């Protein structure tokens, strides 16, 4: 099958479809892309516009299309990924060696400046003048903003600076407005690579890597189920392909076991859907690696829980560390005024006033943990722990190890030995998980429930609350 691409009205380039991938064929044929515009704007035989900026979401085919055009038409090009170019010298080196050979690149001085690069380029191009337009393709061009400030504006007008027929193509995810330097620059041509629509394009592309031993219709229905779960969360083609490949064996399990036929979509759906939901919480978030996921599928007779990265269950803390952490959480999220009421054994008068000020109702939960001094932490700790604990060095060293584990974070300067301040960096779910492990007495659970009540901003009648609190301390 041959595709005719019409360029400048004279040449029709005939691309042989056996060489390029199906993906390119799809993109060439699809009416979505304004590839004709790109092809005519970057004209290989005549002067083309000095710089072109192509933007679009991830995995929409930007690099693939541009590089496949370059390879198929055999145009002189230098493809550089800006993530690799830690210094601009690496970029210059790659460009010169792609166009003029490694000898030319070796002529660059040690730390080449842009001036050296332009001079050398002019020298080389006057020795070997260009018959066709040369292309410099800069992938992930958003990194160029962090390099020398003059690199981006200079590359955009490189054609003018070196007086040669060269075009710079920038590919990026981020829009052009965020690239423009303060005093302006040469404006490139902007092209947008549109994202895929669910129905026509995405399903079509994903169905291309179907397993040979099953029918394409089965795979298409599997893709539809997968998109039903994941499409509202993520539209990245690479992620969806990865998930599709990982979970297909689980999908085909009932077919292999003989429990269902290919047309039994509902049964297959019932089998795979909870599995996909679990995948969303683990593999999609990279909490487990794909290898672990596949292994878990293979030996899943009993529904074992996966060892996830941020699993709270398997962090083993010493006994008192758990109490210290719980005390830190209470200290971070309860205002200091309320400590007296909650933690003192003998409570004075019960006043009718609101124990939460208005501004604290929203700020407690949403603005994050507040710093507290060490003394307050120890005071709450002693009232939370059920047995008598002596303030030995082992207790204090546990605080330091909690800081190292990044469960607590130290606020303020390191050498403030007098009264260090800390903040609790864990969430309520973690604390609840810990307190479930510890043989916690009723009192502790009530205290946590109390802070939950505070956070949910529902303060029921104060009277009942005060009586509840006072009852706690009488236990």
């Amino acid at each position, binding site marked *: 099958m041959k595709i005719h691409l*019409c360029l*400048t*009205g*004279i040449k029709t380039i005939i691309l042989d479809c056996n060489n390029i991938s199906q993906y390119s064929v799809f993109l060439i044929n699809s009416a979505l892309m304004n590839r004709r*515009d790109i092809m*005519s*704007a970057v*004209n290989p035989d*005549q*002067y*083309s*516009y*000095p710089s072109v900026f192509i*933007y*679009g*979401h991830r995995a*929409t085919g930007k690099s693939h299309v541009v590089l496949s055009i370059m390879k198929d038409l055999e145009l002189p090009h230098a493809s550089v990924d800006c993530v690799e170019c830690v210094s601009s010298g690496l970029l210059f080196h790659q460009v010169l060696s792609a166009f003029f050979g490694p000898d030319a690149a070796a002529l660059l001085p040690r730390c080449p*400046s*842009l*001036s050296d690069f332009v*001079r050398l380029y002019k020298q080389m191009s006057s020795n070997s003048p260009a018959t066709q337009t040369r292309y410099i393709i800069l992938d992930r061009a958003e990194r160029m903003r962090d390099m020398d400030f*003059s690199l981006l*504006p*200079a590359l955009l007008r490189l*054609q*003018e*600076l070196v007086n040669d*027929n060269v075009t710079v193509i920038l590919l990026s*995810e*981020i*829009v052009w*407005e965020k690239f423009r330097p303060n*005093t*302006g*620059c*040469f*404006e490139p*041509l*902007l092209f*947008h690579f*549109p*994202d895929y*629509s*669910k129905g026509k394009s995405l399903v079509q592309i994903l169905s291309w890597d179907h397993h040979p031993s099953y029918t394409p219709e089965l795979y298409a229905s599997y893709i539809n189920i997968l998109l039903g779960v994941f*499409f*509202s*969360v*993520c*539209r990245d083609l690479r992620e969806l392909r990865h998930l599709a490949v990982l979970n297909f064996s689980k999908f085909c399990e009932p077919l292999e076991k003989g429990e269902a036929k290919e047309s039994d979509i509902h049964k297959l759906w019932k089998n795979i859907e909870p599995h996909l939901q679990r995948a*969303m*919480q683990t593999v*999609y*978030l990279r*909490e487990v690696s794909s290898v672990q996921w596949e292994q878990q599928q293979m030996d899943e007779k009993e529904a074992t829980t996966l060892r996830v990265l941020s699993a709270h269950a398997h962090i083993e803390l010493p006994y008192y560390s758990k109490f210290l952490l719980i005390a830190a959480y209470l200290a971070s999220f309860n205002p200091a005024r309320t400590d007296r009421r909650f933690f003192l054994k003998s409570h004075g008068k019960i006043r009718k006033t609101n124990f939460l000020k208005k501004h604290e109702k929203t700020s407690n939960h*949403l*603005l*994050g*943990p507040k710093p507290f001094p060490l003394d307050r932490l120890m005071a709450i700790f002693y009232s939370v722990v059920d047995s008598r604990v002596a303030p030995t060095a082992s207790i204090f060293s546990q605080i330091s190890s909690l800081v190292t584990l990044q469960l607590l*974070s130290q*606020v303020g300067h390191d050498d403030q030995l007098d009264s260090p301040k800390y903040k609790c960096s864990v969430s309520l779910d973690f604390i609840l998980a810990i307190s479930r492990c510890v043989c916690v007495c009723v009192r502790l659970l009530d205290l946590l429930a109390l802070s939950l009540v505070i956070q949910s901003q529902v303060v029921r009648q104060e009277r009942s609350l005060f009586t509840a609190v006072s009852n706690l301390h009488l236990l």
Partner: protein
Amino acid sequence: MSKRRSLTEAQCVSLAQKLLRERLCHQKLPDRPLALDSQYKHLLELLRRTAVHGESNSVLIVGPRGSGKTMLLGCVLRELMSLKEAQKNVLLVELNGLLQTDDKIALKEITRQLHLENVVGDKVFGSFAENLAFLLEALKKGDKSSSRPVVFVLDEFDLFAHHKNQTLLYNLLDVSQSAQTPVAVLGLTCRLDVLELLEKRVKSRFSHRQIHLFSSLSFAQYVDAVRSQLSLPPDFPDPKFSDAWNHSSYTQSLFPLSAFTAGIFKPIHLFLSVSRVSVSHSTLHEADLLEASRLISADSKAIILHGLSILELCLIIAMKHLNDTYDGEPFNFQMVHNEFKKFIQRKSHSIHKFEKPVVMKAFEHLLQLELVRPVDSGVCKVQREYQLMRLMLEHGQVMEALQRYPQCPTDVKQWALSAFA
């Protein structure tokens, strides 16, 4: 009956494309720059005085991007070099602020362009001034009475003002004032306040001569300018084709375009329309120009919003509501998640509850697209969920993107339109 075979249509199109591309992309110098006559004469006169009579001068050419500074200079230099006396004597040194980012690099470049590398050899100079004086001394002719005039062209002049101590500028302008060597210093810049950037000692040595290039064209002049840029020259081999081309009517479509062209001499939209010309479509139509202007004026952020997932869109709507409620104060992820949860619990039917880490991943994708930016960019000791951010989109952009979003669920749209979240 002409003996010469007329060119085929395709060859005509290709030749027309070649000529126009050379003019539009490659910035080929026209015979005379449009609408810049007085500035042209002024500059030419100044340079003639330096080249022929040996007077030192300094001048700044100031104008916004695309107003024709480099083009004007190119035309003037071309005419200058056609004068017999100038051709033999004048040396040209071209420096660019983007390339020569340091005074040392600039000095090396000057040495190279004056072809004095051998003369300098391995000498070490104490200061910039000594080096420059040595170079200019070396240019003196045999009888040491007069020296060849040098024209220094400093492109992106404002960037030279950011060098340390502005030594290059100081020394060049000093030479231009001290009447030893006839030197002309020409600066080109797009900043109108460039004189504020100069130090006092540099500013006092500058002659304060400025040539401003502000394009103040009426619409009729603009139309003429565009026509002259797009028309084929009279010596085109196929006169019938060039007639048809030059008389194609597209004046009507130029009116909306005249409002936002960046500079008359950097015509992106003209280029885009020219590039659409092919065998099947061999003259320029209005539709081409309008299509080109539509492509240029498209809002790229709204286009990016089109490709987001529904969860990410809901997060953006939640942020928009937070902005409306709290008058643009920065928010953090916890607040956005809170808003989103309120929506899920009360109003939504189609979107089911997602776990917090999944929502966090969607939020981080928005961070990577730079639609949301942290207030203090830098490493903070605050947890990720509590770091303060701002939304980089306007209310109007979000609403417009929502209209164009494919298969947007109605409850999400209703939520966006409601005044109370």
